[in-house]
């Protein structure tokens, strides 16, 4: 095949990028080389539009062992234990084939984690669908949930938390973000940096097929009318093989024969071999005839670009091949020595005795394009003057019912009941709480994790939205009694070539960075997914934040269910009545404009730290952060979980009742304490200058909001649980 500019463009490269390739090579690349460049230089692998901005994120901290740049981030949780975690998107494939797309997304992120030597101990997911009324939504949701469960359940890794939202901006481009946490001993972490010359390069796992060729390029293109043509790039997941691969890799890792290991993810053998060579500052030579292939007559181009799943690349110590092969034989997996490390600093490929590619590694990595794209700054929208007259026509109980049954608030039990969340025997907080919590096997420690996003806030004002979402993640961890340690992020945006979408990206990242820096909640891993759009319209900017925290003694974990009657309920943090962009404003008043609630990082940190102190002293019986739907929504969920009611006090506030109950001011928590502790708790809160209000008292059976409004627990449960079940049921 003749390589020319047009062919390069068909591979998703830009004209000047093609010229740059020719200049770097000082010749025209052959077809295999062009394929390799297109895979390495696309957005998905090269981060060419995002690198410039991502480098400003705070990535260091006293608990960070490994920040971004490896397969996953690693944090220290003491006693030689470390947690490896990362989140990743699989948006485009999931829209085309929801089951397999979501399944392979889960498979991919788990490989990222066990490549580093960690046994996966928990999965999370953040999934976003179009409007429930859209004709595709129901099937996409069902397919995605079945896919996530299908893969994770088979692997025997509990899915402990997640997030599900619906918004019409995802009608033509759903989001599927999967996150995995793994546990590893600090002195047994594996990296992808190759070292040493003449070391054998080993291929293990499944055979290479023609699946997913150019998957990485697809992830970097937007959906248009030609979507059909992009179809063959979807892969079929094989969780059984991955389970074997996990066990085989961990078995090999128990010894000391591995120099470097890297999973084959996007752009398969290409990116894995090049990354290992690049990090080790050396070359790799591969004989492609040695690669185990599923189909006859696969070309070098196909072998290099295949995205077949469940494969790994390993650089081994010399002489360990036989021993390693025995392990993979035992697990019935392919094992092949396919090449060796060299000092050439080039990637050199041979096929049928011919050299089919010869590319200096640095041209693919360091010299890959980086763009500081044009972007537009977003103005803070003007505050909306909400006519309080209209509140008079509203009844609190009806509004509450509507909000509790809103698709974005209602119980997601229909989803998480399909995920095995108890396998491995260490799940101590199941989905349905503020964060999922698993014990570190055989210890008293537990790890909490939560995944969050608030696209509406980010859309209204990306800078505030970016900050808010980090804070929400922080709060979810605090609410279960965990000390927040670090985050991973999956940045789902529209086209970086569109100035507005790019602006959303830049400012969300800025906000995210500010908040994580202030809260000492660094970013240790992440993933960028651009081109989430249909035709020219991008999705609402949707950064998903996966937060991880530590509970030193799992017995101190806190849950949100109310515990005992006569206990006192406090709201921590100030309620100012901010309704713009709240669920109340959008869903009840149909008002979609205005700024999102403001973030005050000082209060955020102070409130969170103080709550942790109270938890430490065992004052807190239950806790829940206040988010979507305001105080009364949060309180309702606590009632539902604990099967208890609350009698609200009349607030000594000047704001309107609806503002009091439904506003979405940030930095707030609801906590339950016993009367005897009230004085001590008050003292601690005052000493730490934390604003709080007494909200009410726990009772046995009703949420009593005012003289006229009394809602039974059963009614709350009904409002909260029926929508999704009914929706999926017919």
């Amino acid at each position, binding site marked *: 095949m003749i390589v020319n500019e047009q062919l390069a463009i068909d591979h998703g490269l830009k004209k000047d990028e093609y010229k740059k390739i020719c200049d770097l090579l000082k010749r025209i690349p052959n077809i295999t080389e062009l394929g390799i460049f297109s895979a390495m230089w696309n957005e998905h692998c090269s981060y060419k539009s995002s690198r410039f901005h991502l480098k400003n994120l705070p990535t260091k901290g006293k608990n960070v062992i490994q920040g971004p740049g490896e397969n996953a981030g690693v944090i220290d949780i003491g006693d030689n234990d470390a947690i490896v975690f990362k989140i990743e998107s699989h948006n485009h494939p999931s829209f085309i084939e929801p089951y397999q797309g979501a399944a392979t997304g889960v498979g991919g992120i788990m490989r990222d984690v066990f490549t580093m030597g960690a046994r996966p101990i928990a999965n999370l997911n953040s999934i976003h669908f179009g409007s429930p009324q859209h004709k595709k939504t129901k099937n996409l949701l069902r397919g995605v949930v079945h896919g996530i469960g299908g893969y994770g*359940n*088979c692997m*025997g890794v509990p899915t402990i938390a997640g997030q599900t939202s619906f918004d019409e901006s995802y009608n033509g481009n759903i989001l599927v973000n999967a996150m995995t946490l793994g546990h590893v001993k600090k002195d047994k972490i594996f990296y992808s940096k190759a070292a040493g010359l003449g070391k054998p390069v080993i291929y293990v796992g499944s055979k290479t097929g023609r699946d997913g060729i150019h998957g990485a390029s697809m992830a970097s293109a937007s959906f248009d009318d030609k979507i059909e043509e992009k179809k063959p790039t979807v892969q079929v997941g094989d969780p059984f093989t991955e389970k074997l691969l996990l066990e085989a890799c961990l078995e090999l890792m128990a010894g000391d024969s591995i120099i470097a290991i890297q999973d084959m993810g996007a752009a398969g053998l290409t990116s894995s071999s090049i990354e290992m060579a690049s990090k080790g500052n050396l070359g790799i030579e591969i004989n492609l005839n040695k690669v185990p292939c599923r189909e006859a007559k696969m070309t070098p181009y196909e072998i290099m670009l295949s995205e077949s799943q469940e494969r790994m690349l390993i650089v081994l110590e010399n002489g360990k091949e036989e021993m390693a092969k025995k392990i993979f034989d035992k697990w019935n997996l392919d094992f092949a020595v396919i090449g060796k490390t060299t000092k050439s600093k080039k990637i050199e490929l041979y096929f049928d005795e011919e050299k089919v590619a010869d590319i200096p590694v640095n041209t693919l990595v360091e010299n890959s394009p980086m763009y500081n794209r044009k972007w537009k700054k977003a103005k803070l929208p003007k505050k909306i003057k909400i006519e309080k007259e209209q509140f008079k026509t509203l009844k609190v109980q009806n509004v509450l019912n509507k909000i509790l049954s809103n698709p974005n608030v209602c119980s997601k039990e229909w989803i998480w009941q399909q995920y095995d969340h108890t396998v491995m025997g260490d799940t101590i907080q199941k989905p349905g709480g503020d964060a999922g919590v698993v014990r570190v096997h055989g210890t008293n420690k537990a790890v909490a994790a939560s995944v969050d996003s608030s696209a509406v806030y980010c859309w209204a004002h990306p800078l505030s939205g970016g900050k808010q979402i980090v804070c929400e993640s922080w709060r979810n961890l605090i609410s279960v009694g965990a000390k927040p340690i670090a985050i991973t992020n999956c940045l789902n945006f529209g086209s970086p070539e569109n100035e507005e979408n790019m602006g959303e990206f830049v400012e969300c990242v800025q906000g995210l960075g500010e908040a994580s820096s202030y809260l000492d909640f660094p970013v240790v891993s992440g993933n960028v997914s651009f081109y989430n759009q249909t035709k020219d319209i991008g999705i609402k900017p949707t950064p998903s934040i996966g937060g991880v925290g530590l509970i030193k003694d799992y017995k101190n974990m806190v849950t949100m269910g109310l515990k005992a009657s006569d206990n006192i309920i406090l709201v921590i943090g100030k309620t100012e009545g901010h309704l713009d962009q709240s669920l109340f404003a959008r869903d009840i008043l149909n008002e979609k404009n205005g700024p999102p609630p403001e973030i005050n990082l000082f209060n955020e940190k102070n409130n969170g730290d103080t709550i942790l102190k109270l938890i430490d002293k065992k004052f807190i019986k239950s806790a829940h952060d206040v988010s979507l739907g305001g105080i009364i929504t949060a309180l309702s969920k606590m009632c539902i979980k604990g099967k208890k009611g609350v009698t609200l006090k009349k607030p000594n506030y000047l704001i309107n009742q609806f503002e009091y109950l439904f506003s979405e001011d940030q930095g707030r928590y609801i906590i339950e304490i016993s009367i005897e502790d009230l004085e001590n708790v008050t003292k601690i809160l005052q000493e730490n200058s934390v604003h709080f209000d007494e909200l009410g008292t726990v009772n046995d059976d009703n949420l009593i909001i005012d003289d006229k409004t009394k809602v039974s627990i059963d009614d709350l449960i009904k409002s909260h649980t029926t929508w999704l079940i009914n929706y999926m049921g017919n």
Partner: protein
Amino acid sequence: MHSSVITFPGSNCDRDVDVALKKFGFKNKMVWHDDVELPKSDLVVLPGGFSYGDYLRCGSMASKSKIMKSVLNFAQGGGKVMGICNGFQILVESGLLPGVLLRNKYLEFICKNVFVKVNNKDNSYFKDDKKDIYEFHIAHNEGNYFCSNEQIKEINDNNQIALFYSDENGNINEQSNPNGSLQNIAGVFNKQKNVLGMMPHPERMIDPALSGEDGSIFFENLINNLK
């Protein structure tokens, strides 16, 4: 008491049940599916998980593995064999237990706590049980017990039903049937009652921090009965 837990490719509750058995006093050994001989055991456990990915039919391929010949002999000689979840499916596929486990009626994987009522205490698994109704955990996609009319008659005539899905008061009805199982069957014995298969996972409920503690009661009783 010596127990053995068999690991098939794709088993994923093997560690969980190992932890549980040890916690309640068993000396447990892990046995690889490709081994020929079972170690000396008072109890053999086929754990939950997805042996061979649950491909073809759950348990079908594991039932053909090498170790199963030994398990078969062991069981035929009166040895105690217990299959949990996927282990139950393997026992059914290998012919040690009657019937078959079909896909859940509502076509969805179910992970939750359920109540089960013990039907037959005249065996080493449930003898002297303090409880009639356990709260156990289920996590499966194919737990819908089914068998032919003749078989179900035989099963009932021989008192082979071990556990029924029930509500917390022991009522056995459609509402308390999570997966469509025939007659709410959650577990069955072979004729001799030395082989037990059940869908629920008692090993997931052995600690107050987990979904519950009824599993502890089950295991404590089990080891006492085997002594």
